[in-house]
């Protein structure tokens, strides 16, 4: 079960990751796109070090919802397949875990485009 304190940690950890992104954006004058790339790569590296899973267990959605978890999930998929099928899994498994996020974004974005009108 998820303890109620997870809500507090989700707020603090998720907020902190976004705050880090904002500081990078303000200090370096990068676009949000640059910052998202940096955070995705950071998420992949943190998972490689084995630090991201403990963060998810502890902060729940605070670690799952920021884009860093996308990098984490990509590494997870590759490692999962590599354990089951050997080195080829490093290629075949990359999108295994992230399918939910990517597919949902493509499908919902497409459907929204069907019904919505562009706004200036």
């Amino acid at each position, binding site marked *: *079960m*998820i303890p109620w304190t*997870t*809500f507090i940690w*989700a*707020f603090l950890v*998720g*907020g902190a*990751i*976004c*705050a880090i*992104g*904002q*500081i990078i*954006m*303000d*200090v370096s004058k990068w676009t*949000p*796109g640059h*910052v*998202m*790339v940096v*955070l*995705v790569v950071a*998420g*992949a*590296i943190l*998972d*490689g070090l084995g630090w991201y899973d403990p963060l*998810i267990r502890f902060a*729940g*959605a605070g670690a*799952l*919802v*920021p*884009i860093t978890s*996308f*990098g984490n999930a*990509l*590494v997870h998929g*590759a490692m999962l397949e*590599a354990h089951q099928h050997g080195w080829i899994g*490093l290629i075949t498994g*990359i*999108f295994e875990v992230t*399918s*939910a*996020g990517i597919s*949902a*974004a*493509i499908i*919902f*974005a*497409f459907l*929204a*485009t069907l*019904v*919505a009108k*562009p*706004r200036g």
Partner: protein
Amino acid sequence: MSATKGLSSLTYKQLVEHHTPAQPILRNTARAFVVGGAICVLGQFVQVLFVRYAHFSVTDAGNPTVAVMVLLSVIATALGVYDRFAQWAGAGSAVPVTGFANTMAAAALEHKSEGWIVGIGGNMFKLAGPVVVYGVVSAFFVAVIHYIIIHL
């Protein structure tokens, strides 16, 4: 004439910096923290609902949670709410996965008039593409290093 001369002695960059309104880092960071934290708390509610009512394990509930957050973000984008809110929240709305979904829906919507294939299909990943490319490339190298270390 003398005024133009005075201006030209400044570099263009200095001029731009002079006229750019000061962006207080502290205020922006506080906004990003609060908004980003709030989006994650919303995500936490969704995850708890999946665990409690759909009987997912805590780990298995992660993926559907992300999908629901993506759906909410796309709806907010289609209604034109997300982009207005993003101007205020900065990284607070860009860093969560909702920001990723927002860039895809917004890019597709913006280029809708250019047609189904070139407009929507060709532009959906215009902004989200770099995240996918560098995410996959970095994940590949991290996984390769991990694999080599394990199998040495």
